[in-house]
């Protein structure tokens, strides 16, 4: 995987394979989730990211291990791209004690302190002020870290979105805002919820630099994210990317999809991030079908392992019901 601060993406073969591998992992992982949802292994709300993989995968390339991530209820992709163990994510969805959040959160609330992955927030817009605060803490402590906040275009109508953008800009905080504009908030098309559907203009109203990005193109997303992260690390305050993307599946497993045409979905599927990137790589000769086959095999193995891990993971004992509501005294920090 490419590292360093260069804005230009070095599309070395190895990096290309890495990007493709991650997107395919997310795709297959979520296809499995849908299956397991039907099998009633996964319950509650399940929001799939299928079609939007290029965004999480592209953006994560630009972030280092010390940076922080805040995501939404549609966060399996972000969690996987961030490197959270697939088994723990799956166990979380099973509600098992070995899950990322001890099974307490489920699909919408995946957390991982080791990866500075701050959820998993099922309140639309609710993660934005949180991200601002994480960045504020970094700024006040002199850490050169970035907080990356993912949210949907639907969140842009919420007051919390605006309050957060204003604070981030006013205080010059190192926040990377990633608006994953997939055109719909549940069944509401953007034009029907925003008087001005050009989301990046809102960023401009707060004097935040912004860019619109093709969120179906992982290379473009990575490049834009690198530019943004470089600017943020250089102390230029927050940055806003609007990634134009699309979800191929229903909003959640309860959605009858009455609000959009099948044809529209099909049109977008043709330019899907996985198919487009892999075809392009094949065409340029950078990779071969055998590479894809071996990725698929590896991914299948990872997912099998994840499911096995989740299956055999223990349930939290009922006696522990009220643990982790308050921090137990023993763990209390003593300072200064």
């Amino acid at each position, binding site marked *: 995987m490419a590292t360093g601060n260069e804005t230009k993406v070095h599309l070395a073969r190895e990096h290309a394979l890495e990007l493709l591998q991650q997107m395919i992992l997310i795709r297959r992982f979520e296809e499995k989730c849908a299956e397991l949802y039907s099998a009633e292994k996964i319950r509650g709300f399940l929001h799939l990211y299928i079609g939007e993989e290029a965004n999480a995968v592209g953006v994560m390339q630009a972030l280092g291990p010390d940076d922080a991530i805040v995501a939404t209820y549609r966060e399996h992709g972000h969690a996987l791209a961030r490197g959270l163990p697939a088994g723990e994510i799956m166990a979380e969805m099973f509600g098992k004690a070995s899950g990322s959040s001890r099974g307490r959160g489920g699909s919408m609330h995946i957390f991982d302190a080791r990866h500075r992955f701050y959820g998993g927030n099922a309140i639309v817009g609710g993660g934005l002020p949180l991200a601002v605060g994480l960045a504020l803490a970094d700024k006040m402590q002199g850490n050169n870290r970035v907080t990356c906040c993912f949210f949907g275009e639907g969140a842009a109508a*919420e007051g919390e979105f605006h309050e957060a953008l204003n604070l981030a800009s006013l205080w010059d905080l190192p926040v990377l805002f990633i608006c994953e504009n997939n055109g719909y908030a549940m069944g509401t098309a953007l034009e*029907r919820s925003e008087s001005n559907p050009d989301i990046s203009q809102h960023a401009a109203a707060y004097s935040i630099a912004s860019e619109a990005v093709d969120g179906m193109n992982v290379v473009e997303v990575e490049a834009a994210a690198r530019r943004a992260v470089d600017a943020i690390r250089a102390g230029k305050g927050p940055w806003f990317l609007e990634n134009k993307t699309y979800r191929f599946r229903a909003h959640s497993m309860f959605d009858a999809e009455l609000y959009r045409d099948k044809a529209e979905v099909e049109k977008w599927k043709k330019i899907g991030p996985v198919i487009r990137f892999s075809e392009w790589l094949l065409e340029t000769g950078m990779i071969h079908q055998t590479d894809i086959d071996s990725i698929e095999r590896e991914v299948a193995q990872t997912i099998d392992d994840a499911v096995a891990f989740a299956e055999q993971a223990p349930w939290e004992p009922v006696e522990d*019901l009220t643990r982790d509501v308050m921090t137990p005294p023993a763990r209390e920090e003593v300072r200064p």
Partner: protein
Amino acid sequence: MSKTRTLTYRDAIREALREAMQRDDRVFLMGEDVGRYGGAYACSKGLLEEFGEARIRDAPLSESGFTGAGIGAALGGMRPIVEIMTVNFSLLALDQIVNTAATLRHMSGGQFSVPIVIRMATGAGRQLAAQHSHSLECWFAHVPGLRVVAPATVADARGMLWTALQDPDPVIIFEHATLYNEEGEIAAEGEFSCDLDKAAISRSGRDVSLITYSGSLSKTLDAAQRLAEDGIDCEVIDLRSLRPLDDATIMKSVNKTTRAVIVDEGWRSGSLAGEISARIVEQAFYSLDAPIERVCSEEVPIPYPSHLEKAATPQVESIVAAVRKTLRT
């Protein structure tokens, strides 16, 4: 009139919405995804086609904004029904509901009433975890200027809406998320609207009064059934109205049975069950033969896994145990 039909709680709500829209052209429905999507819980499916976009009004994600707009529209002569998907999201609208809707009449010295109806889903039981499963009915029931109801039956889901719309003051309707698929019988035709004030005796009995509401009613009835097999005769009260509370019905029952168990899905500390217990002590203290028991949710944000979610919320077993406990003394 003796002919009946079976329908779901969801369909009862849809029918009530439809009827209200037909009867009064000032009525409109506003909220996130009530139109094209058909409602998060599908309560308004098909209504957009019948009544058009102006009256089945999809709102952007902005709970404070559209709830406040509903309040303004009510002031302006309309009869808005605002749908908030889940009580957790209503936290974003509480400023408008409490600081404006509930106070406006008083602050204006009686000049302006706010005839708004706000519906929202509440409660746990669908494994939606800590940001979608709260039961905050007691918060709303605390606020003067609001009327708060909780239809627990298909008949009430069908009947309360129209009455709420006739009320000149703000009415909050709580719909428990586990009820939408429940079926019930109602009259085949006629006038369905019903009062909003009175608690109902859902089952009459002599030994102990079980007081409950909303999603806990059916669990409580099941518990009563199970206890009946052991010869324990429970009276079950469905509160229906959470503000105002129907003290008379409660006290009459407790005076008769001398024992009370309150079943409430809210977290125990500061629950509506606490208020009801306090009232019984104030109004029927000398009738009581045993401490009042409360069966409430445990003090934990609702966890995702089914076994923990069940353990966190009232269940038939915990109700049965509480009844046995109050009878042992």
